């Protein structure tokens, strides 16, 4: 490719485009079909998250965190809640910890299903997308059972959760897991090991480990490059150290380590690992206990600051909070994993074709709500 050089032109992908996963604009310099430079323009969804947080109380920040990574709200809630808890030194009951892990892992599955489904859509496979959405729907039904919301939950609060588990939830959850586990095989048959899908994704958009690390890429994208780094394992928060699960990394099974297929495959494997965690958590879930017991009457952390990171479905999600002793945070900064993922786009998709850029962008699994905040 690229032997014959023609006139270059600038192509605008987005902000309204079927495959930019939100309102992202890509300024792409192309020579025919071959892309020579990509400049992502972000900010179309900027809602001043951090500035807003300085003007509301600590409790009122939680709904804002929902709206950052809106496909994995539980994980955002969890990250924020444990950061404030650590700042205030709150110990939450064991039952709350278990409920949180269950919710976070269910949301991780839902988020990965969305990522994989839309990735299929990006490379032209429509049917797997609907299969995955069908199964994601059942997770959302469970969330609706718990807190009434299907997308933005505001469920995990500082010191507890908003509602106790409803009657029959554990059975519903087991029922879902029993139904869901064989589905992964179906996805693999339909999409993962499809010849055309492999042609489109293997060896495409290779992100070597050193590039990934130097750009600060985290989460499944980093693990796709073969780096074994998962905060749930390496810096355990909440009660993740109690569970037995593996951290899947890309091995370059069908191409080079760090290609689009590896990133896809890591997500697929993580779904299986999440199911493993869920089974253990549901088994060990304490029966009794009040989920509102540890919720403080007034959230007024002592002076000081804290930086705490958690593993969201997109990677290393961290909150930096500076408190001046008032009920409102003095400064709140969110480290968004999708933001670092999009920054590597230009580096790994230069020289590929236009169709590949869409495939690479999809494999990075970005959520614009989190990038723009």
């Amino acid at each position, binding site marked *: *490719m690229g032997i014959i050089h023609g006139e270059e*032109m600038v*192509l605008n992908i987005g902000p309204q*485009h*079927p*495959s930019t996963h939100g309102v992202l604009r890509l300024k792409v310099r192309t020579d025919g*079909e071959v892309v020579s430079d990509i400049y992502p323009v972000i900010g179309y969804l900027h809602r001043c998250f951090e500035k807003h947080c300085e003007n509301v109380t600590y409790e009122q920040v939680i709904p804002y965190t929902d709206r950052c990574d809106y496909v994995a709200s539980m994980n955002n809630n969890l990250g924020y809640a444990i950061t404030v808890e650590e700042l205030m030194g709150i110990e939450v009951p064991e039952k709350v910890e278990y409920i949180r892990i269950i919710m976070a892992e269910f949301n991780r599955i839902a988020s990965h299903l969305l990522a994989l489904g839309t990735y*299929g*859509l*990006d*490379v*032209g*496979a*429509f*049917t797997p997308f*609907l*299969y995955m959405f*069908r199964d994601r729907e059942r997770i959302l039904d469970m969330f609706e059972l718990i807190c009434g919301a299907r997308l933005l939950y505001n469920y995990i609060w500082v010191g507890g959760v908003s509602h106790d588990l409803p009657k029959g939830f554990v059975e519903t959850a087991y029922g879902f897991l029993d139904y869901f586990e064989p589905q992964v095989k179906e996805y693999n048959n*339909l*999409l993962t090991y*499809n010849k*055309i*899908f492999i*042609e*489109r994704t293997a060896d495409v958009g290779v992100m070597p480990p050193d590039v990934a690390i130097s750009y600060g890429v985290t989460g499944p994208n980093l693990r796709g490059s073969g780096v074994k780094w998962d905060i749930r394992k390496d810096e355990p928060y909440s009660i993740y150290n109690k569970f037995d699960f593996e951290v899947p990394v890309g091995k370059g099974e069908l191409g080079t380590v760090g290609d689009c297929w590896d990133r896809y495959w890591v997500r697929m494997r993580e779904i299986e690992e999440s199911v493993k965690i869920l089974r253990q958590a549901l088994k060990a879930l304490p029966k009794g206990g009040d989920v509102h017991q540890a919720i403080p009457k007034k959230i007024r952390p002592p002076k000081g600051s804290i930086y705490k990171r958690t593993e969201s479905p997109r990677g290393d999600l961290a909150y930096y909070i500076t408190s001046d002793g008032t009920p409102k945070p003095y400064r709140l900064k969110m480290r968004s994993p999708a933001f670092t993922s999009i920054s590597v786009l230009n580096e790994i998709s230069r020289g590929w*074709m*236009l*169709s*590949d850029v*869409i495939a690479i962008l999809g494999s990075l699994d970005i959520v614009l709500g989190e990038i723009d905040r």
Partner: protein
Amino acid sequence: MTVDALYHWLNETFPFLSGNEILIVLAILIPSVALFMVIAVNALVLVYAERKVSAFMQDRVGPMGQGVGLHAGKWGLLQTVADALKLISKEDIIPRLADRKLFIMAPFVIFVGAFIAVIALPFGETIIIADMNIGIFYILAVSSFGVIGLILAGWSSNNKWSLYGGMRSAAQIISYEIPAGLSLITVIMLTETLSMQGIIQYQSGGLFSWIVFSSPFSFIAFIVYFIAAIAETNRTPFDIPEAESELVGGFHTEYSGMRWSFFFLSEYANMLVVCGVAVTGFLGGWQSPIPGYFNTAGWSIFWFISKILFLVFVMMWVRWTFPRLRVDQLMDICWKYLLPIALFNIFGVGIWTLIFG
């Protein structure tokens, strides 16, 4: 019922007009209108089928007529009618910087390409509009006429996405015409005729005298032709000219309303044509699979259409199962696989005919 036969019939029925030019016009107009109806009904049926097939494959129910008042009939049977009404009533937008003349012309050029190909399709022993002695050659020639329309649409829209789509489709359709033509040559070698009716007459005598089963090479030729046919109709996995997730809509990005629906109409008409050629060339055309039975004129239409619908169903099946290829992989498949196989096939069929023929 060819145009010639119709003309003679009109001459005999209306002796007072005998030899008048009006009869020539009528003899051309009547089949054209009938053909337009065939294409319109074809699109109606296939759009509905596509919706339902995709829905059942994706664990959905597709369009359903539930509720009171305006709804799409039982099982959503009127969904396509509703779609058509919507398209007719939509605003017709022509971009300010578009090349107006070409922009308006393009959908018609594409449609004409599909339309004039249908006239050579034999629906029965006598039910054919133009029984040319070079029928199959004619269809191959005019079906590439649509490419001009695609390029016109892509260029005149003054949109980079459309331009990409137009260029991609031109490259794709022209490339895939070669393996398609070469695999049809094997049919011509066996039947020793270019006439559509002649090819079908050769295959009389039931299921096992169909060309697709006559030798392993002709079976391969059928597969090659069918793959090329899917590519020629721009359907997944070869839908890169449209490539919704990359090029938004490709060459028809800027089209709306009725103009856009002409692209749609011709896409489904093209499916009819390529499947019709496949049925004629390989699956015995309007011949019944059981020799001597079900071979009246009515049955012949039934056989021809049901064979076409079967192939169309396979196309839909493929479409809703596979991802899309990249543009260079598409060319690889054509030039590195299909073309050598098709060439080898001609050789193979020749030797097979020499030994067993």
